[in-house]
């Protein structure tokens, strides 16, 4: 594969090189046969091979030093005239072929693929393979980049890949413009690379996501694959061969909305923890119960209805085409006109969902409904990220962006597997507990969502504290959650969960004693994360945070200090 560009050049240059060799052969041999003339005009022997080759070399390349070593006879000049035209044709042909080859699209494609393969092969750190770099993929890439993870992108659209090159990522990002449905392209992108951690199939095409999921399952069963699916049949198909995570943004949003109605504080907590890290804090959503109007009863509408009804919400549906809505009251129309909305009973409704697949219609529904009843809770579905300014200007109570939901879930699953365990435990907690934790996270975050991350107290991730713990040193959680630059200030971080073997400890207190092998799930800013990671990894930093001593860690200095200490102890006896 890497050599293919070289072989392509050789193959294409075959004819020009043969032509050039033949022309040189004819010219040189001819020149060694034509008799010359000496200074007095007497016939002289022809040029030898050496001189003939020298002469043809500088004549053919149009350098033209003149008639060397002696002036030519007329017969030689006649032959040289023929040679000049022959060789110029030969060289032009060769050069033109080479230039045409360099401009050839196929050849350039080969070169780009070669460069991509080389860059993927050189990746030293673990990386994620992102298939599809549309709205969702782009969001995922940017978040991964901010969190400092490497990733490789495979995207069908050439233009998007070129745009990706223009965005300055911190990490080295190889991107290939190719169809991810073809297993070959996935392999080129490092599917079987030892450092490939997971594959994300987040293209806009359902079938492509399915194809990627099955290719990963068969070619590299060890790594997880996360796939986006919109239709239940594709999701079922993916589940049938063991896709690790299937994300359906519609279903996820319907679950969230139902949860927001039933348990607003728990929903708020989940929203904070699964939001993209270090983004502005989302507004709290408090959707009211009661009667709601649902505009658009397609796939999204169906999922919403099936989740909202158990939460105790009565629905009235507005749908332009006749749909099988079962027992739900249905009104024909788009919901963009006041008449339809009044007919649906907007006067008694407490909320409205603008859930069609047309952004302009959704905005129109939301604006009309708000004019009719300003106190209405408005949920708007945004289909395309280009319309973000419009939705932001309107400011719905709750905006649903499918790409964002998928990206959030991917990041949460990939970066912190422990978070899923935490969210499971959350179900058993009451609203007051959630509200308390939300208050703590909001105060700590200063208007930004926290990054949720985990660290294991082992030799690889946090060697300094691991060594101390192995010496049976007693260290409590509160002792390490201190600012490494000034140990007087506590670190703005919350420990959500500690996993010790199979045991899970929710919200451990400050005097919680740490043991080697513990895995901590924390919520903090990225700066606090770096701070704590350094403390746990670097023995000198840890020493300062635990005791307040400033040590350099130099062996000589430490020995000197130990001796001084021993002498001090000895004299005091």
């Amino acid at each position, binding site marked *: 594969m890497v*050599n293919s560009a070289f*072989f*392509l050049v*050789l*193959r*294409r*240059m*075959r004819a020009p*090189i*043969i032509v050039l*060799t*033949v022309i*040189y*052969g004819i010219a*040189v*041999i001819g020149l*060694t046969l034509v008799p010359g003339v000496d200074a007095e005009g007497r016939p002289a022997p022809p040029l*030898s*091979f*050496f*001189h003939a080759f020298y002469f043809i070399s500088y004549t053919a390349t149009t350098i033209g030093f003149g008639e060397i070593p002696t002036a030519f006879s007329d017969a030689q000049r006649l032959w040289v005239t023929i040679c000049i035209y022959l060789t110029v044709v030969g060289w032009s042909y060769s050069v033109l072929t080479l230039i045409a080859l360099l401009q050839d699209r196929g050849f350039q494609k080969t070169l780009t693929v070669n460069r991509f393969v080389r860059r993927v092969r050189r990746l030293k750190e673990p990386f994620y393979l992102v298939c599809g770099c549309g709205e969702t993929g782009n969001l995922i890439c940017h978040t991964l980049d901010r969190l400092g993870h490497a990733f490789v992108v495979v995207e069908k659209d050439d233009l998007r890949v070129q745009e990706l090159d223009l965005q300055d990522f911190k990490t080295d990002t190889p991107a290939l413009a190719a169809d991810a449905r073809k297993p070959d392209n996935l392999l080129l992108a490092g599917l079987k690379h030892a450092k490939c951690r997971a594959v994300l199939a987040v293209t806009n095409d359902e079938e492509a996501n399915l194809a990627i999921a099955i290719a990963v399952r068969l070619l590299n069963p060890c790594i997880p694959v996360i796939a986006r699916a919109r239709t239940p049949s594709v999701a079922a198909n993916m589940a049938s061969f063991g896709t690790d995570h299937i994300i359906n943004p519609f279903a996820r949003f319907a679950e969230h909305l139902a949860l927001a109605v039933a348990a607003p504080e728990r929903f708020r907590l989940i929203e904070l923890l699964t939001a993209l890290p270090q983004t502005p804090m989302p507004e709290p959503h408090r959707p009211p119960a009661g009667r709601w109007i649902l505009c658009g009863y397609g796939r999204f509408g169906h999922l919403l209805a099936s989740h909202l009804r158990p939460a105790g919400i009565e629905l009235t549906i507005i749908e332009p085409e006749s749909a099988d809505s079962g027992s739900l009251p249905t009104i024909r129309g788009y919901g963009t006109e006041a008449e339809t909305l009044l007919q649906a009973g907007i006067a008694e409704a407490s909320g409205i969902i603008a859930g069609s697949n047309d952004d302009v219609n959704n905005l129109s529904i939301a604006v009309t409904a708000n004019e009719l009843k300003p106190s209405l809770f408005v949920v708007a579905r945004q289909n395309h990220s280009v319309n973000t300014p419009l939705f932001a200007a309107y400011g719905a109570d709750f905006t649903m962006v499918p790409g964002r939901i998928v990206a959030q879930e991917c990041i949460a699953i990939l970066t912190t597997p422990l978070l899923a365990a935490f969210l499971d435990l959350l179900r058993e907690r009451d609203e007051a507990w959630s509200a308390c934790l939300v208050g703590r996270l909001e105060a700590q975050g200063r208007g930004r969502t926290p990054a949720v991350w985990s660290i294991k107290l082992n030799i690889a991730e946090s060697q300094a504290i691991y060594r101390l713990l192995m010496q049976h040193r007693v260290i409590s959680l509160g002792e390490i959650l201190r600012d490494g630059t000034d140990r007087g200030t506590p670190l703005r971080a919350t420990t959500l969960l500690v996993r010790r073997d199979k045991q899970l400890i929710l919200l451990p207190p400050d005097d919680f004693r740490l043991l080697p092998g513990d895995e901590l799930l924390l919520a903090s800013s990225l700066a606090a994360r770096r701070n704590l990671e350094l403390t746990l990894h670097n023995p000198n930093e840890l020493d300062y945070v635990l005791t307040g001593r400033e040590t350099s860690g130099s062996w000589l200095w430490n020995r000197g200090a130990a001796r001084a200490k021993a002498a001090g102890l000895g004299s005091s006896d």
Partner: protein
Amino acid sequence: MNLEKVIFGFFIVLAATLNFGFFIGDIERPELHNVYELAAALIVSLIATALKFGDRTQIGAIHLSTSLVADLQLIAAAITWGVAVHVTGVGMTPHVTSSVVSLSGGALFANIVSVVILIVETVMLRR
């Protein structure tokens, strides 16, 4: 019959025969080794090399490498001749002649290997 195969075989065998023609004869006597024959052997050998470009099979790779060896040897022989006759002016002494001819002898060996591979390839062919 494939014209490409005819041309390919022709040039490989011609490179070997021309080389043999130059090589044969008493190694010290310049009159038995015509310089035109050396030139022809070199040109044909270069063409044969170009013909082998771009074949990505294993046999193609060995073909190309033997040809490159032959080229290298013949170019070395030509340079030896050029230096002796034109640069140092020693002329074709028995010493110079024997080194030129022995260099072409090395090229002949590479060319023979080429021909052997060609024959092996043909024998392996089932069509």
